[in-house]
């Protein structure tokens, strides 16, 4: 088949929206620091009914992590597993290719689907990161109810999102279906404006 030249180029999910620089309130340090996360490896993992024990073993062997219980996120650096539904998890790798071979490794124990281009991820940190998120979710993110290693699948402005907390600075990762990234950004920019928002170059 003949090769056709095209103008198609890979483009980051946040390239048109998350412009690096200062947004919203100008005075004082930023309340929210946003880093678009590009080039991650993401995959959904759904356990085969009855093969849960075998899946847990295979995950342990590959990641050195146990499978998180509902609402849990087991992270090791940028890699890890985030619970995302009954018998379902989101597998994370810090770089494209990090999850290569996962489907074969889990054959018979889980269905694995690549989500690396399907989800767009932001890292949110800063002293007001929790207050910004609280404007959008009906989930208690206060440390008494949520914290590092916890995740919630919920919605912000009617857009389905998954949030997991990485540390207690606090730092959160937020994943959204890629085609909703622009809509979610509109909400985030408005919600963060009162606190001042610094957008860093994607990493």
């Amino acid at each position: 088949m003949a090769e056709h030249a095209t103008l198609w180029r890979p483009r980051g999910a946040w390239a048109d929206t998350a412009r690096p620089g200062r947004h919203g309130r100008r005075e004082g340090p930023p309340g929210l620091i946003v880093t678009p996360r590009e080039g991650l490896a993401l995959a959904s993992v759904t356990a085969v009914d009855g093969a849960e024990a075998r899946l847990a073993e295979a995950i342990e062997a590959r990641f050195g992590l146990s499978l998180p219980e509902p609402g849990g996120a087991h992270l090791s650096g940028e890699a890890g597993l985030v619970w995302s539904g009954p018998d379902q998890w989101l597998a994370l790798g810090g770089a494209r290719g990090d999850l290569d071979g996962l489907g074969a490794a889990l054959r018979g124990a889980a269905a694995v689907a690549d989500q690396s281009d399907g989800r767009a991820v932001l890292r949110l940190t800063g002293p007001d990161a929790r207050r910004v998120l609280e404007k959008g979710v009906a989930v208690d993110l206060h440390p008494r109810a949520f914290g590092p290693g916890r995740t919630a699948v919920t919605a912000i402005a009617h857009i389905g999102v998954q949030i997991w907390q990485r540390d207690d600075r606090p730092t959160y990762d937020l994943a959204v279906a890629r085609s909703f990234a622009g809509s979610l950004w509109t909400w985030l920019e408005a919600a963060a404006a009162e606190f001042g928002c610094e957008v860093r170059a994607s990493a």
Partner: protein
Amino acid sequence: MRIRCPSCGERDNGEFSYLGDAAPLRPDGMEASAEAMHDYVYLRDNRAGEMRELWYHGAGCRAWLVVTRDTRTHAIREVQPARDVAKARATTPAGSASHA
């Protein structure tokens, strides 16, 4: 109204969508009479009181739930994963679980 999802904890009812009565079980389509199919598809009780209903946690964990709710007060007594209810039904003798 809030529903305590067995996986996600207490969530706003805006995250859920309502299907309806959890009791009707689909008759065997090849064997069932027209009356039985009509009953299954169209006929529902409009109960004032406790009722078992199917809700879908679409904006959360995407699980189907069986919610026992009082239609007069919205008080929710029990929430179970619909999968567990179906599995339990599959292991009970036929006919003994016609009202799930």
